[in-house]
């Protein structure tokens, strides 16, 4: 009897563990276009991992949500604004320093249109491999004043604003990730948040 109970408990524990996709945040339900606003922070500042770097998304009500699964309409243009609060660590593969798969082939960094970003200045990237989208995100300078340490970061703190747009096509789940090894503490920087959906990786649910 005790054995059966413990097996049942273990089974419940395993199933509970495994079902942990972050909640899907709907960006827009109207077809044709959507505005995706993101912020990247150096430390999340709250449990379960206060020191982990993370993306956050602004939902339809204007609140910042800690989720990396976003729902956007198919066959539409997605206008992305990234408020980048983290410092630069540099691209492992500088080939990713050029924005690709974006409309016009350019990204706007603090208002200036750029075709390429010097690789050492990249703090993160926003990359959707299956859509061919790759945008390097410029980092905040090391001695910029008023840096944000803990979420949610506000517009008054030091940040870089990156804007770009891309098109979605068919419906489906598209994975996205960051390509800068920005996980501090792990050797070669690809551990922890870089390998966990909900932090520096996620899904774009195109419906």
């Amino acid at each position: 009897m005790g054995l059966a109970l413990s097996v049942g408990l273990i089974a419940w524990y395993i199933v509970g563990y495994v079902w942990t996709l972050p909640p899907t945040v709907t960006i827009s339900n109207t077809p044709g276009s959507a505005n995706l606003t993101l912020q990247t922070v150096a430390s999340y500042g709250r449990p379960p991992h206060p020191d982990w770097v993370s993306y956050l998304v602004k939902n339809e009500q204007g609140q910042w949500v800690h989720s990396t699964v976003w729902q956007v309409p198919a066959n539409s243009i997605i206008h992305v604004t990234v408020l980048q609060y983290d410092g630069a660590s540099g691209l492992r593969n500088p080939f990713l320093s050029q924005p690709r798969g974006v409309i016009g082939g350019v990204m706007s960094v603090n208002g200036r249109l750029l075709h390429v970003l010097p690789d050492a200045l990249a703090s993160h990237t926003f990359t959707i491999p299956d859509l061919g989208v790759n945008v390097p995100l410029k980092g905040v300078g090391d001695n910029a004043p008023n840096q944000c340490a803990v979420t949610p970061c506000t517009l008054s703190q030091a940040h870089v604003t990156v804007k770009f747009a891309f098109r979605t096509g068919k419906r489906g789940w598209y994975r996205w990730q960051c390509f800068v090894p920005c996980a501090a503490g792990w050797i070669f920087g690809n551990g922890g948040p870089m390998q966990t959906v909900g932090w520096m990786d996620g899904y774009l649910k195109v419906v």
Partner: protein
Amino acid sequence: MDDRRMLTRIGIVWAVLSVIGILGVIFLLGPHMPPGRESHNASDQTQVNILLSVIMTPIVILVWVVFGYSMLNFRQRGEQIEDGAPIRGNSTIQVGWVSTTATIVLFLAAIGTYELVEIGSTASGAGAAGGQGPTPISVPTDHPLQVQVIAQQWQFTYRYPQYGGIETFSLVLPVNRTVQFNVTSLDVIHSFWAYQLGVKADAVPGANNIAFVRTKETKSFEIRCAELCGLWHGYMSARGEVVSGAKFSAWIQRQQVLNAPAMHYVPPYRKIYFPQPYGRAG
């Protein structure tokens, strides 16, 4: 019924089923046998697979027929427990089995070794397409196209050193050409698997793994990562293309123009790149 007659019956059944089986393997399974015939190497591998299946078929049928015959005919009839025939062994059969299986094994090993060692001028053999490390058994003599496959978490990129070290996100190859893949990784162990080309080579950080392919048809092929490399291992896939020589040149030139801004920052071509704790691998 004495042993000789039973064995003769079994022998006849086995022979008939084996012939049917072998014909089925060659004609029904053969055209669909993976990995297909999209490259010379893949064709060779398919031939090896067909040969192996043909050799294995009579063995499997023999075991099935003998077991099946025994299970049907040598049963206890009725409730009374009876003893079977007290046979301890048969040295003829034992020696025959050992020597036959050993011979088959030696034969297979010989064929396999031949496929691995013969590389010829165009590296179109079956074994050439598997990662052979930095010192392959022999190098083809027809100036292969050099393609470096850089695996990183979680996407493949490719560099063409003979075209100025241009790096691209997609793999395009010219047809009827020997290609040398230099596979390496920037972080963890991945594996470059071009399914229809019959190429598989592990991408190990700090090592250069060489595989060859001789392209044959202008079709596309599936690329997958075949070694667990972390979160998006299953999603690390793409499609590559084999195109005509003219299209290939045009494509490379277009890539050189399109990617010029990024190439400014890409380190010079090397066989191995070492990732720094933070920042560029070079």
